[in-house]
């Protein structure tokens, strides 16, 4: 499977944020998108996910088979927001996404253990701290299987130990033949990842 972006151009409110961005990622490859605020990292990720229309160019996956024919169906998108309901418990939140997204992988229990939140599943999501909420959101990547992970500032709010644990999760995902595209300011601890440096448009 291969994730290809050709000649992408992105707009925000009618103004071009970036243009002529292209990359092709094979299984096991990661792309780190860096750049100052306002350089279009989040916009790029949302365009790749298909949540925003591309001003120019296109994004596609090759070799996804019948299960993952399109980028949207092959991707986990982890944005700034955690996509969890504060009124529901952690287990209910993760259980819902596991059932809704299909292709179940780890059980909710196992995923919570992996992000070191085992035993907290019964708590309402609203009771958790910022870092713990982010970790639940990371656990969401594990409960259903998607080859492409699109991560927007995935480590925002995480402590040192959790950052390292998350780097380990990304490495495991890459070893399993996954693809990671991450926008970040902080080093993610991925060796051999390619880097895409974005600049603020003139």
């Amino acid at each position: 499977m291969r994730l290809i972006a050709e000649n992408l151009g992105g707009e925000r409110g009618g103004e071009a944020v970036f243009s002529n961005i292209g990359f092709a990622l094979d299984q096991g490859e990661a792309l780190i998108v860096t750049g100052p605020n306002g350089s279009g990292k989040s916009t790029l990720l949302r365009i790749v996910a298909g949540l925003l229309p591309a001003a120019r160019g296109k994004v596609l996956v090759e070799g996804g088979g019948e299960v993952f024919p399109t980028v949207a169906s092959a991707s986990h998108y982890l944005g700034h927001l955690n996509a969890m309901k504060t009124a529901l418990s952690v287990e209910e939140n993760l259980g819902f996404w596991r059932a809704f997204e299909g292709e179940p992988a780890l059980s909710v229990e196992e995923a919570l253990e992996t992000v070191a939140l085992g035993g907290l599943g019964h708590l309402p999501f609203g009771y958790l701290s910022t870092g713990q909420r982010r970790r639940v959101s990371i656990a969401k990547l594990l409960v259903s299987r998607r080859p492409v992970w699109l991560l927007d500032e995935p480590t925002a709010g995480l402590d040192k130990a959790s950052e390292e644990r998350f780097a380990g999760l990304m490495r495991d995902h890459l070893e399993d033949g996954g693809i990671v595209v991450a926008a970040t300011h902080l080093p993610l601890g991925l060796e051999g990842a390619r880097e895409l440096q974005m600049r603020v448009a003139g």
Partner: protein
Amino acid sequence: MAGRPERGAWAQASQTMLALFLRDIRLSIRAGGGALVGVIFFLAVIVTIPFGVGPDLSLLSRIGPAILWIAALLACLLGLDRLFQADREDGSLDLLVLNGDRHMLALTVLTKCLAHWTGSVLPLVVAAPLLGLFMNMAPLGIGATALTLLIGTPAITFIGAAGAAVAVALPRGGLLISVLVLPLTIPVLIFGVSASYGAVADPAPFLQPFLILAALTLFLAVVGPLAAALALRHGTD
């Protein structure tokens, strides 16, 4: 899904939608869900009417079905703005739209509508017979009005979903949704009220307007979610 028979895909889709339905129902009954707000508003309107109209029992029983319907319509519109906005604020909407590639987004919207209806409109239908007593309505009229509300109010939710999807990005979209949706709900109101009258007033027919009401609900069950899905897909930012 490769190689699996069609039935497998159906079973998977229905399980997925059941998960969404149960989540939305849970959210509506948990704290801050707002399931009771509509009922309390409905109650407040109906209880106020007799004070305004005066103690003319025959007048009250004559306008009863219409008042019940109008109050139910307004109470339905009350909670609609949260239908997609709550999901947008916490980022869930992005993932619902993304997964629209996997199972039709319109189906997701339909499920959300059904959950919204069950959580916040069905209580109105249940409360309607009780409130009919305030309006001095005959048992037959109360039953007919409750039945038409049961059949007709889903249509309001389906139209409302399209309005809610259009206004999802607006911070105070609630009023806009009501204004957008209200003209479209007028046919539902007309046939709902005329069927309710048909059951009690003799020359007026019951079955014809009732069947048109049912047809409206079925028609809007398809059109509303499709329009809402289209608006959501183009409204992400």
